């Protein structure tokens, strides 16, 4: 099966948040409806970050411009890495990689340990408290399996989101970056081509990665690298300890000693001192 990918073009995005709403609607993720339930972010951004009920968030990165504010919009969601560290650390195999590159979190298997959040260089999976599971974008694998686009792509009115075979999406992303550079956006970059082994959610960053809040050259956290080092070392260590103790046991077979008394021990000590 060919690999699929989403392309988000920040230069076309109007930050209408339609994708954010549609994601919630399709995946039946509620929004906080109580008064002041969502923390005010100080901008038009709905909430400070993804949360247990929000798999996709449109971010408003603001920068002071001559006559007001200039925005760099971002689509924050799972990047569906080719080398997903979340999958590596999941203790129950709730995270898997589908043939098309989608990194799927199966919440019927998830035990809510939050290891995936800790391992993700983007801290994308979030803990869904009411259900005691982690939650993240599944690239609408249910829709894709039926030949449909992910819900966010389907709803985007500005055509800032597109979906299709990864090689085509990649080519489109590169072409768009070239267009933007020609139009004077010198810092325009494509994010996701090679990062984390290549992502299945690509990003046209009109103003450069940093302006859109993207992590340049993301790496799996050092702690995750250490986990994968500790585990085989621990296995070897346990084998060495058990082997060593087994050898010690064998060398001690047949061990016997005289029953000591205070008197015999003193006599032994005295004889030893005399020697």
């Amino acid at each position, binding site marked *: 099966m060919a690999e699929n990918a989403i392309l988000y073009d920040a230069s076309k995005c109007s930050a209408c948040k339609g994708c954010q709403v549609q994601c919630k609607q399709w995946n039946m993720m509620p929004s906080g409806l109580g008064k002041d339930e969502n923390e005010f972010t100080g901008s038009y951004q709905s909430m400070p970050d993804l949360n247990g009920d929000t798999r996709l968030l449109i971010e408003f990165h603001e920068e002071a411009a001559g006559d007001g504010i200039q925005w760099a919009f971002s689509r924050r969601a799972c990047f569906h890495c080719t080398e997903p560290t979340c999958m590596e650390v999941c*203790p129950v195999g709730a995270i898997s990689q589908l043939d098309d590159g989608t990194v799927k979190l199966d919440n019927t298997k998830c*035990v809510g340990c*939050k290891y995936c959040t*800790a391992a993700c260089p983007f801290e994308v999976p979030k803990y869904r408290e009411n259900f005691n599971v982690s939650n993240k974008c599944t690239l609408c694998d249910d829709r894709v399996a039926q030949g449909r686009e992910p819900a966010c792509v389907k709803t985007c009115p500005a055509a800032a989101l597109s979906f299709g075979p990864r090689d085509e999406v990649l080519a489109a992303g590169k072409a768009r970056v070239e267009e933007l550079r020609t139009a004077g956006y010198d810092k325009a970059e494509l994010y996701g081509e090679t990062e984390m082994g290549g992502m299945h959610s690509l990003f046209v960053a009109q103003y450069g990665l940093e302006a859109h809040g993207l992590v340049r050259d993301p790496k799996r956290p050092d*702690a995750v690298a250490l986990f994968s080092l500790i585990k085989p070392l*621990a296995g070897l*260590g346990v084998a060495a300890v058990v082997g060593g103790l087994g050898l010690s046991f064998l060398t001690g077979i047949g061990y016997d000693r005289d029953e000591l008394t*205070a008197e015999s021990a003193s006599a032994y000590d005295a004889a030893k001192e005399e020697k």
Partner: protein
Amino acid sequence: MTRYIQRHSLLKRVIHGVHTVACLALIASGTILFVPALGRAVGSDVVQSVRMLHRVFAVVFISAPLLGMIVAPKGFVHIMKNFFAPWDADDKKFMMLFPKYLFSPKKTHMPKQHEVKSGQRLADGMLIAASVLIAITGVILWAGRFVSPEVFRTALMLHDVAFVLVTFIMCAHIYLGAGVFQPYRGSVRLMFGDGRVSEADALYHWGHWADEELASGENVVEA
């Protein structure tokens, strides 16, 4: 008539027993989380139950020694005094000879020891340090939703390191303490029996301490 020395009180043995059960249960349940392949093999329902049990035993693991400290503060001070006692020549010699003793007990004569052997003091120190680390990081992991992913990640890594240390030390502790090692045969009775040690064993293992106890006669029992 054999002479025995009462080495451990009932309270100490009960706390040690409860702590042992909790520790072994934590190692077993922790292994399922530590090795993803095991967790995947048993399935998420089992892992979820194991995680809950892990927390129950963690509470026992942390509270048992704390309870002991509260109920018997003098005993705790006594343990600490032994723990921090300066090492004399016999203590140092014991540690130098111990590797040889472990692999040729029939040909190695060990020096007399005080109430707690120098080797055990060293192992106890590592075990206490690893246990404190595993307890603190465990609480942080339990409170995972209130800490940042970075703190969670660091706590998880330290928890894993402490887990490995505790597992190693426990392997050696059980080998010696349960008397699997021939010269230590019968020592399981000290913590999992009546807490008494025979005169012969006391003189062999803790010569200096046995001399003092037999001289004072305070804890000497004849049976």
